[in-house]
């Protein structure tokens, strides 16, 4: 029973409450970041889809640069390097800012390929019926593309929930961070804490992945 002893010691109501508080921070930061990323990524994706000279190319370079960098570097950069040029943020803001920069680039690609998946004839038909380009995008292309984008966006949200854990490097008090505080008390707490932390991430993300899969099946 020696093996189980640390589990019994760690799994107290106080520790659970502490971990759930951390998970609350994880969910809050992830939710704010996905909403901001959807707005910014949507704008970038649409501008690139519309092939506006110079703007589209510039955005392509920015998006490709961000997508090819490690998120950890972007988080470090936001929190430790930006203050050197006078941009200081507190931990939660820095975490949200870094995640939003990274996920906006990811979402812009999802949105762009969703828009590209709608047949070009739809635009021509929209224009021919007297709508202007913006109206055609708004009333014809976007409503169809959005439905196709939902499953990849849910998948991206799962990635974001997992990626939020990287903000422990700037001491964001999220689930992993609170887990670290608990296992720092005693060496034998490491395994029980990781088991419960991993399970908490798993339950939420797995549920979300089932939703994404359902939506995909519904569409095909």
């Amino acid at each position: 029973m020696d093996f189980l002893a640390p589990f019994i010691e760690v799994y107290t109501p106080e520790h659970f409450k502490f971990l759930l508080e951390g998970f609350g921070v994880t969910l809050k930061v992830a939710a704010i970041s996905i909403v901001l990323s959807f707005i910014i990524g949507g704008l970038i994706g649409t501008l690139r889809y519309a092939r506006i000279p110079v703007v589209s190319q510039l955005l392509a370079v920015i998006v490709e640069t961000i997508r090819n960098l490690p998120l950890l570097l972007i988080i470090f950069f936001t929190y430790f390097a930006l203050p050197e040029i006078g941009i200081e943020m507190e931990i939660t803001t820095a975490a949200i800012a870094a995640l939003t920069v990274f996920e906006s680039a990811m979402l812009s690609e999802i949105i762009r390929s969703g828009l590209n998946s709608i047949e070009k004839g739809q635009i021509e038909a929209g224009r021919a019926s007297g709508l202007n380009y913006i109206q055609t995008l708004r009333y014809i292309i976007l409503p169809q593309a959005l439905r196709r984008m939902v499953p990849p966006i849910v998948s991206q949200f799962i990635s974001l929930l997992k990626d939020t854990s990287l903000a422990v490097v700037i001491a964001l008090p999220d689930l992993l961070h609170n887990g670290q505080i608990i296992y720092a008390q005693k060496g034998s707490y490491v395994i029980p804490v990781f088991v419960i932390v991993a399970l908490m991430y798993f339950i939420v993300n797995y549920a979300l992945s089932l939703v994404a899969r359902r939506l995909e099946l519904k569409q095909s």
Partner: protein
Amino acid sequence: MLDFSILTTNMDSFLEGLKITIIASLIALLGSFILGTLLAVMRIAPFKPLNWLGTAYVEFIRNIPVLVIVFFAYLAGNFGGMTAGTIGLTIYTAAFIAEAIRAGIMSVPRGQMEAARSTGLTYGQAMRMVILPQAIKIVIPPLGNQFINLVKNSSLLAVVAGGDLMYQGDLISAKTYVTFDTYVFVALFYLILTIPLSLGVGYLEKRLARSH
């Protein structure tokens, strides 16, 4: 303007970090390819307990953060930072590669397996000599994408003192007190690795799309 003396005076550290980033990514790619292939075969093998085991691994690992796995490998095992980090990356990436390989295997027509079996090959032989060689073509672009993710995720070695590019960047910025410029150079080193890989994968994806 960027202070290039940071780059020139610390070139050895940057290159040492770059080397470890490349080595850790390559080892993790090889390891997760082997483990991923094994898991993919388990998931489609005609033996239910193997299916369950493979599915449980893939679903569990895919839905938890890679940092949790890296920390766990570092704290629960008796390894140095680089080894623990590489093991963590391998465990995580194997789940994604398994899915890519499974999709590849599923894309080979069923008749191929039946034909191979009827010529007298065992299930294992048919898989190894007939199905997998055909599946691999479809699997290469997603494998490339996983390799790019690996290079980026290898930055997590920095959190367990793994000596990689990100870690060296942290040391240099702590030594010089110039964080902004140091991180820009670290970013450039990552882009030297990831941009050509991204372009290569994009090219392969286009070629494959055309041949279908």
